[in-house]
């Protein structure tokens, strides 16, 4: 029997009053893969995760998780999933150990197995030394790790991560990414939402880009990046420098035509290695003086600009709740 996809939705819709949080969303995430839902605040990512984890009922369409219908077979779905997210849903008035033990008991692992599994997870997530401290005293990164550990207590085959690193500092993000990669290596299927392109790029094998409740692009990170043109070089010219001379000098390293706006030249690149050296040499030969030069990776905003023609809107819609 072929394995059913981890997630499969058809025409999934949800609205809150007049706000369409999801419009006709079709998704498919294969078992054993990492699937990323990429989009800005208010795009509908959290709504999608809440429906897939049985917390919210859709208004239209169907969703199956691990082969079970999220509405009609919610209990079977819940037995197979773990949920962790940006809100780090852990009890501040319990210790880290007590939190995990409680979740283990609620998954019906039994008292002894719950205790053992809790110790194991505290160890895995570098929380063993703080296991008996109240979670109220934990740092943001520690809470997020504990939240992830809580989602893993019953070793669910399918893990939903709702913006796992939003609001974390760089070091905590890296730590969490490594933990997620470790899980994936051990065979866990992961569905994650994120507003960071680099996070989706690093973790996900396939990405669906979502905006205002619709899926506007889908593919591997490579396909998406090719679609939006990959890395680029940004050259800030000195005041009074000859912009046209700069553009023609940089055309030789560009993949496409460099564009000049207000003394800033944007150069799409085919190959990033050596690009800065080549660019500086050519500009020097052409006698163009520059103030700054930098490599830029495409951001979510670039993806959006390319796909939708508008920038990411930074308003928090109520739909995100």
């Amino acid at each position, binding site marked *: 029997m072929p394995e059913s996809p981890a997630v499969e939705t058809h025409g999934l819709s949800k609205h809150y009053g007049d706000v369409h949080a999801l419009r006709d969303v079709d998704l498919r995430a294969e078992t054993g893969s990492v699937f990323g839902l990429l989009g800005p605040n208010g795009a509908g990512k959290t709504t999608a995760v*809440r429906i897939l*984890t*049985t*917390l*919210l009922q859709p208004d239209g369409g169907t969703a199956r998780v691990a082969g079970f219908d999220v509405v009609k077979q919610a*209990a079977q779905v*819940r*037995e197979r*999933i773990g*949920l962790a*997210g940006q*809100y*780090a*849903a*852990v*009890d*501040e*008035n*319990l210790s880290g150990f*007590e939190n995990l033990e*409680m*979740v283990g*008991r*609620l*998954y*019906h692992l039994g008292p002894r197995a719950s205790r053992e599994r809790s110790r194991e997870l505290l160890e895995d997530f570098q929380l063993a030394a703080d296991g008996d401290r*109240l979670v109220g005293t934990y740092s943001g990164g520690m809470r997020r790790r504990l939240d992830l550990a*809580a989602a893993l207590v019953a070793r669910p085959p399918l893990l939903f991560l709702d913006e796992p690193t939003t609001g974390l500092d760089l070091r905590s993000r890296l730590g969490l990414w490594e933990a997620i990669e470790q899980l994936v290596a051990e065979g866990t299927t992961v569905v994650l939402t994120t507003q960071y392109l680099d996070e989706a790029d690093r973790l996900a094998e396939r990405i669906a880009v979502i905006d205002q409740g619709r899926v506007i692009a889908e593919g591997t990170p490579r396909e998406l990046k090719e679609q939006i043109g990959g890395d680029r070089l940004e050259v800030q010219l000195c005041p009074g420098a000859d912009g046209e001379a700069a553009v023609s000098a940089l055309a030789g390293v560009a993949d496409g035509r460099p564009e000049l706006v207000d003394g800033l030249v944007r150069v799409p690149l085919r190959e990033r290695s050596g690009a800065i050296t080549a660019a500086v040499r050519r500009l020097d030969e052409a006698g163009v003086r520059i103030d700054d030069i930098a490599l830029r990776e495409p951001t979510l905003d670039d993806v959006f600009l390319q796909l939708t023609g508008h920038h990411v809107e930074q308003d928090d819609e109520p739909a995100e*709740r």
Partner: protein
Amino acid sequence: MNAVTDTLVLAKRSLLRIRRQPDLLVGFTVQPVMFVLLFVYVFGGAIETPGLEYADFLIPGIIVQSMVFGGFVTALGLADDLKKGLMDRFRSLPMSRSAVLTGRTLADVFSNVVQLVVMIGVGLLVGFSFKTGVLEIVAGILLLLLIGYAFSWVFAFIGLTASSAEAANAFGFTVLFPMTFVSSAFVPVESMPSWLEVVAENNPFTKMVNAARALFLDTPAGNDVWLAVLWSLAIVAVFAPLSAWRYRRAIRR
């Protein structure tokens, strides 16, 4: 049975929390103790309670009031769980759907026992004394715990419905608090204006307070004990399903 285990696991969680935040329980216990002292020593001399010392009259009433408000911890706890996203975690687990609520209300029974011991202790110190036998006293204590349990479900509903812990708090003190005063808890209802006397006489708190007095002080019971039990059961029968319904639809705030 998973539902029983889940309830116990979550009741333990609530009780651990009380142990960690003892100020929560202290707050809810100190207030009724303060009320006892204020009423006995400040107002007591001015309130006529024919046939009873005021301390005897007051203690059963004020204990009923403290049992009613014992469930406040549940309202605050549920509102907090909603805000912090813990409710999402619980609702994504393959656990009994009702356990989040039954666990809380069960934990309230334990904290109500603590309150009851404190209140009776303080009562004995200010001059209250039991006038009935052991059986009636035990029946009275069980009735008080049943009343407390019933109101835990009212507070569960408030906690899941109010927009925040603060709103739950405001509702409790603007609606329930006056209702406990327009009753036989602190003054004989006969001393009220006649229109208010009618309200107070039919207030379920009055039935509950009269029942507690009958079981502790051997005052004439009439139907009050049975009415108090019926009222408590009716409150559970209405508010438990209402709370379960709110819980299923609960959305993080």
